[in-house]
């Protein structure tokens, strides 16, 4: 009797219990081991046999037969985005989701590939939104469709299915954010001017927490080359001012966006030559 056959017998006996069924007859090494011990009753002999059998089976852990490997997805020659960019995406999605669209569009347009560890989370995050989901498919390349094939839980729900022509046009465009006309003019100004306007406003109380949403939108859509100045000016707001907390939050947004764009700078020339995302 093999160890596996013995184990099967022991399991069968254990279901009924030794009060109703005798333990299986033992032979081989396990039989010798149990016979060598002083076992006054069937249950004690059975327990000893079970213990010995488990120890032998564990020590001789055997893998199952080989299985056919999966067909991998087609190769994607684009370079994978740097780890700092991956970390930034995690940070954005938890703290500054207003920047996520720009992050993904920039990644695609500059020829990067979405890091594979982000693909499941990005697919799951955008199961309902056709445009954003399509961006993930472009950013992740063939891996995204391959992954959805193997993990049905990542498939789109009803509203996140195929792209309409209109939605396709929106793939590379940043969605418009609500900004009132009196603040829209800021978008054409320099970073120092935007920062100064906001700093004065939060210090004199004309801009308060109620304006946070629109100020966030201004910083999320202003010209990137002014972000460092915005962060500097807002970071210098007097810590005793009632607007200091709001200024700090907005400075963090400006810094985060600047770093995000830096991390997604164009890959080196060798990578850039093979990076062509828009046609995929």
């Amino acid at each position, binding site marked *: 009797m093999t160890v596996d056959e013995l184990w099967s017998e022991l399991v069968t006996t254990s*279901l009924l219990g030794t009060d109703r069924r005798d333990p299986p007859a033992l032979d081989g090494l396990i039989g010798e081991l149990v016979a060598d011990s002083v076992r006054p009753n069937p249950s004690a002999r059975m327990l000893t046999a079970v213990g010995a059998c488990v120890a032998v089976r564990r*020590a001789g852990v055997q893998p199952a037969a080989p299985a056919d490997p999966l067909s991998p997805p087609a190769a994607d020659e684009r370079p994978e985005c740097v780890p700092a960019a991956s970390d930034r995406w995690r940070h954005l999605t938890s703290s500054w989701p207003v920047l996520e669209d720009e992050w993904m569009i920039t990644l695609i347009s500059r020829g990067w590939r979405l890091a594979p560890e982000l693909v499941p989370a990005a697919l799951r995050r955008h199961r309902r939104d056709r445009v954003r989901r399509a961006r993930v498919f472009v950013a992740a390349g063939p891996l995204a469709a391959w992954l959805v094939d193997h993990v049905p839980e990542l498939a789109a729900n009803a509203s996140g299915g195929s792209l309409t022509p209109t939605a396709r046009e929106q793939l590379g465009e940043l969605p418009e954010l609500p900004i009132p006309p009196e603040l829209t003019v800021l978008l054409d100004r320099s970073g120092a001017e935007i920062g100064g306007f906001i700093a004065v406003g939060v210090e004199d109380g004309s801009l308060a927490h109620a304006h946070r949403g629109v100020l966030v939108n201004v910083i999320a859509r202003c010209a990137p080359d002014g972000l460092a100045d915005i962060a500097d000016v807002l970071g210098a707001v007097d810590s005793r001012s009632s607007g200091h907390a709001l200024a700090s939050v907005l400075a963090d947004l400006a810094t985060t966006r600047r770093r995000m764009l830096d991390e997604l700078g164009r890959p080196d020339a060798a990578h850039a030559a093979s990076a062509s995302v828009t046609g995929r």
Partner: protein
Amino acid sequence: MAWSAEQIESVASSAAAVTAAHPVATPSRWRDLGADERVLWGSFHGSGTEPYDTAVDHIGVGFRCTCPSRRVPCKHALALLIMWSREQVPPGVPVGETDRWAQRRAERASHHGDDEHDGHEPDATPATTDVDDDPPGRDDPPPVPDRDAARNERVEKMMEGLTELDRWLDDRIRTGLADPALARYSTWDDLAARLVDAQAGSLANRIRRLAGLVGATPTWHDDVLAELGLLHLLSQAGRRLGTLPAPLADAVATTVGWHVRRADVLAGVPDTDRWVVAGRSDHREDRIEVRRHWLRGERSGRWALVLSFAAYQQSLDDSLVVGTAIHADLHRYPGPALRALVGTRHAEPAATIFREEADAGLPIGQPPGQTIEDASAEVGRMLVAEPWLDRVPTSVTAAVVHRRDHRTAGDTWSIGDHTGSLPILDRRGPTEAAPRGASSDVDPVTMLLALSGGRPVDLTIEWTPHGIVPLAVHLDGRTIDIGPRADSSFVGAA
């Protein structure tokens, strides 16, 4: 002077307890009965194979009994008092453990006077505990002789717990796994509570985990029987520690729950190496979150386990980062233990050496890739030393594969290569909590698929009897930690 019936009732936890004690108060069922001016004692022979040794301090009012009851005083102690009140207990001289117990109580009474009564409200302490077994830190450390006595008593309690465990295991095997009692929480909880009382907390945890297996899968009988067998091995080995080779005895003692002081471990010979932090996994055990960091010595090739624990809103150890390596002294627990403490760190964590550097001849900074067959052999070698281990680390170069599970007639994911395949533990199954926390809310199979694209990758995995748990994927130049992560709402930030 013997107590009156009213005095006996006054120390009983309820009138029902006195009622239950009367059938036991039959001298023919007792052996070695005796009484002196302070203590009553005797051995009660019930249905179990081992008698219950009972003693009562009728001066200081204290009780001691080896029965599994958590009620203080238990029915055996009350029965002793009842027989004494009927003048059925002959005078005598206590011997052995009863004598030592009585002397300790007498000494403590002389030191503390009436304070002794304050700590012994009925139901305030487990049955076999007395003032010597207060948790550490409640009072000043006892003098050395008392510490030895306390240690002896702890050993004795542990042995009693193991005896009780084996009795319980025997009942399970006699009545069978189809016995409806297995579906009742009390069947497991009562034993777990008794093992905690017996200072065998590790076994109590195993019992609680075992309870969760019952009925959880179509093959649960298989899993439960295997664990019963291992518990039997441990209880038998634990009761024969003195006859075992020293390393095995150490391993058994710590597995059963014998506490080894941190200072004693750190005083041991260090195992100095460049340790790669190969993987991490978090698991909730009862109300404690347990973090396992698996380290592998680059020079020795030996694995080590560094544990950290967090109760609600406490922090887990974040000082070891998967994919980094530390040059440090590790101090191992007694026996062939994987478990170790990190001692002196000789250098700060260094980035894992990239593959390009490995190609240049520098030592690699990740566990070596190996075939599934070789990884299984490595697991087997660790299980030969300690078959009761329920998690063992190894590393492998393998791809995710899909295969039919003939046991469950369902499809399962495995990792595999040309030498074989190992099933991935279904984390929706009974023995693994679902992944918790924001950073690990994608299941490991999906992460493995995404990171590998179905191609072979270097992995650190944790073997369990129910399947492997992928902990880390080692890519070119970086490592992705995909091990199960603690619920961020349970543990606090570090």
